[in-house]
């Protein structure tokens, strides 16, 4: 044993005797993690958050969160001798005079965009595979908390450099706050410390951005990951995978190596982007001044859906009631629309459990096609989100595709109402179609294209039956039936309490599960085989059912 090894062992022993760490580490190291690329999306979010903290720490060393007016001297030439806030000037100084400053700023901003993109794709993965079902509903809610604070982090950071573009964003925020009935104008004065823009908002946003919001995110990530460990990770359906086991790699060493390596991949990609692709070059926009607004003024992508809903809303919906203004033209797009989106996300797991009468634990994920209505709803909301984001870019669409911005706006107004329904309908049809195809395959096997003529002159095409793994994937799912509604009156003819409520739930349940394709049952399979036994000319031998040689099976 070398000296270092001895020292390491000594330290470990010391810690173990005092904390019992050894047992915990051993336990933890043997935890099994299933492997799939889509399980790494959460990690992309996690790692970009780590990179946000590291690069953000560097930025705080040079940024001055002050709105005091000074004359800027130095690079770039377009800003030399211009009056501006210290915040803006220090951002320029950091970009042009601090070694690596611009690189760090750009990495930080790209990481922010990537963070939000990773959160959204991660959430899509969790939604479409049903990973939010019992026992993970609470973790889904923590996730939504992370999504919302992530938006908050982006918003507070975006405004800090005090440039024209971010100032336009603050101006819109001010408008949204003021549109809140009754308390709006008081709130605005409260937030900005006087009339917009005032001198307080940048220092206030700074404190939120570097202290409050990251602390909340950090705490919630801790909770989130703790729950992932507690629940153990879900797994995709497949032979040998049940709600009772976990098939995958032990955390140590395989998963740790993979996950640790992946951190550096994320860091590498972000460094590459920060080093080669310009982002938010604030000196192009100039120091904030409430009068100018440049063409192509948009927020970062994750806020674009709000910009889009504001752009789509007709301006005539502003009303005067006595001396008060009711700005529905701002309230509806900026408060109601995101309200609908977040309410859907928050209540969905509970609504689905209710209409499914589902109280079981789920550790095997759904294939999206096997839950057509859920998949359809998810795609419908995504469609609305994308239409709104596109509407927020209507000017760029107009110039790049030589279209009229007025016409585009009208098309999007209509699409916002028609598109999601259409997307829902198409997605649901596609899911049902895929399920039917699965049934076909299980019952009749793969087409081989080989035609055989029998002595009696009969032609048949040879079908190759599915192997056990393929079949498991296609039959091991539930197709819940709609809730049964008990009669309106009980046995003695007395009207039941709560009947109306039950009827509403039953109706919703019918919406979810009326159209369904049942999985093939063993007896159906046997019948199909008896009927088509002469198909199996070459007896494809079913492989033994096991979870794979290199993998590791653990208990729930």
């Amino acid at each position, binding site marked *: 044993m070398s000296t270092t090894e001895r020292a390491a062992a000594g330290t470990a022993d010391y810690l173990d005797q005092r904390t019992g760490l050894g047992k915990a580490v051993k336990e933890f190291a043997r935890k099994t993690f299933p*492997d799939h*690329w*889509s399980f*790494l*999306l959460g990690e*992309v979010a996690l790692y970009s958050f780590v990179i946000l903290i590291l690069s953000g720490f560097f930025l705080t060393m040079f940024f001055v969160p002050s709105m005091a007016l000074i004359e800027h001297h130095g690079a770039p*030439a*377009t*800003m*030399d*001798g211009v009056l501006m806030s210290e915040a803006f000037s220090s951002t320029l100084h950091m*970009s*042009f005079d601090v070694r690596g400053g*611009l690189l760090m700023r*750009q990495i930080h*901003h*790209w990481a922010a*965009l*990537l963070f939000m*993109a*990773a959160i959204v*794709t991660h959430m899509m993965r969790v939604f479409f595979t049903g990973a939010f079902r019992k026992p993970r509903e609470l973790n889904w809610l923590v996730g939504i908390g992370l999504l919302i604070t992530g938006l908050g982090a982006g918003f507070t950071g975006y405004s800090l450099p005090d440039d*024209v*573009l971010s100032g336009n964003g603050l101006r819109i925020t001010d408008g949204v706050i003021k549109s809140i009935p009754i308390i709006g104008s008081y709130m605005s004065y409260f937030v900005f410390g006087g009339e917009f823009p005032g001198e307080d908002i940048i220092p206030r946003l700074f404190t939120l951005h570097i202290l409050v919001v990251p602390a909340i995110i950090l705490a919630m990530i801790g909770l989130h990951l703790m729950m992932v460990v507690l629940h153990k990770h879900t797994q995709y359906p497949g032979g040998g995978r049940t709600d009772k086991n976990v098939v*995958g*790699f032990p955390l140590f060493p395989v998963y740790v190596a993979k996950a640790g390596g*992946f951190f550096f*991949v*994320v860091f590498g*990609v*972000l460094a590459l*982007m920060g080093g*080669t*692709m*310009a*982002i938010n*070059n604030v000196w*192009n926009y*100039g120091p904030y*001044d409430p*009068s*100018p*607004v*440049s*063409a*192509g003024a*948009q927020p*970062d*992508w994750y806020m*674009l859906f709000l910009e889009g809903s504001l752009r789509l809303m007709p301006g005539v919906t502003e009303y005067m009631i006595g001396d008060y203004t009711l700005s529905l033209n701002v309230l509806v797009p900026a408060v109601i629309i995101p309200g609908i989106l977040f309410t859907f996300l928050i209540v969905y797991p509970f609504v689905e459990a209710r209409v499914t009468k589902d109280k079981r634990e789920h550790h095997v994920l759904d294939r999206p096609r096997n839950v057509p209505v859920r998949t359809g709803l998810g795609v419908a909301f995504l469609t609305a989100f994308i239409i709104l984001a596109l509407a*927020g870019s209507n*000017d*760029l669409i*107009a*110039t790049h595709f030589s279209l*009229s*911005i*007025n*016409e585009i706006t009208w098309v999007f107004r209509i699409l916002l109402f028609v598109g999601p329904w259409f997307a829902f309908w198409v997605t649901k049809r596609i899911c049902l179609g895929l399920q039917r195809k699965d049934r076909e395959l299980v019952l009749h096997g793969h087409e081989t294209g080989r035609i055989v003529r029998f002595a009696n002159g009969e032609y048949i095409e040879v079908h190759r039956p599915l192997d056990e793994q393929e079949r498991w994937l296609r039959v091991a799912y539930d197709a819940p039936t709609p809730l049964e509604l008990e009669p309106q009156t009980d046995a003695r003819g007395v009207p039941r309490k709560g009947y109306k409520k039950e009827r509403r739930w039953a109706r919703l349940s019918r919406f979810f599960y009326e159209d369904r394709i049942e999985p093939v049952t063993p007896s159906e399979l046997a019948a199909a085989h008896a009927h088509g036994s002469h198909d199996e000319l070459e007896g494809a031998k079913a492989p033994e059912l096991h979870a794979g040689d*290199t993998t590791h099976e653990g208990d729930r």
Partner: protein
Amino acid sequence: MKALAARRHHRLAPVVLLLLALLATGGLYALLAPSPASADSASTQDIETGEKLFQANCATCHGPSATGTDDVPSLVGVGAAAVDFQVSSGRMPMQSNGPQAIRKPAQFDAEQTAQLAAYVASLGTGPTVPTDEQVDPALGDPATGAAVFRTNCAMCHNAVGAGGALSEGKFAPSLLEADVTDRQIYEAMQTGPQSMPVFNDANITPEEKRDVIAYIEEQRDGSAGGLSLGSLGPVSEGLWAWVVGLGLLIGAAVWIGAKSS
């Protein structure tokens, strides 16, 4: 350049420059007036050739005496600068009936353009074609130009001049393309082509116009931060974050995931 820049910061430099500019303008005016186009092109012969070109190429729309119709503006008093801008940028003679006249390869060479300009200028006085010195970006101050651009131009042309949308399919074109010449930038401010307002010399002084040119030239040098991604702002940045950032990482994740089974 360094020395020049240093001297420009002298306290008296603006005064001296202003005096020089005034002298130059006065002298030039004396030399050139009433000839509106470039130095020696205002001969009657040029005007006559210009008229012939006009009758052949422009009169169908602008009318035989250039007084316009209900749909086409009169050219009396638009000046040589307007003609030089429209013809050298290929917008005139106009072809398709789109929402606005668009830039095409110029149909006339410099001499013919000057002759057309001379003819139109002879119909009524208007802004003249600027001199090379008036449009020289090296003599302008990009910082003042940026401020002028921000308040007057950015709302249509985008913060760095990458272009933007107007109503009904009209648009403010990009100013970053190499074929947008410094002279055309000056003339556009002076004459307000298509939907653009006129910025006369009281609005934006000739010096400030030159500063704006200096600012735009500065933008063409590219971005300090790397690829400019079209200078279109957060929408293109978001698109690239998804395509390059998340695209590469999902690729990597699939690769890592694939190693398992």
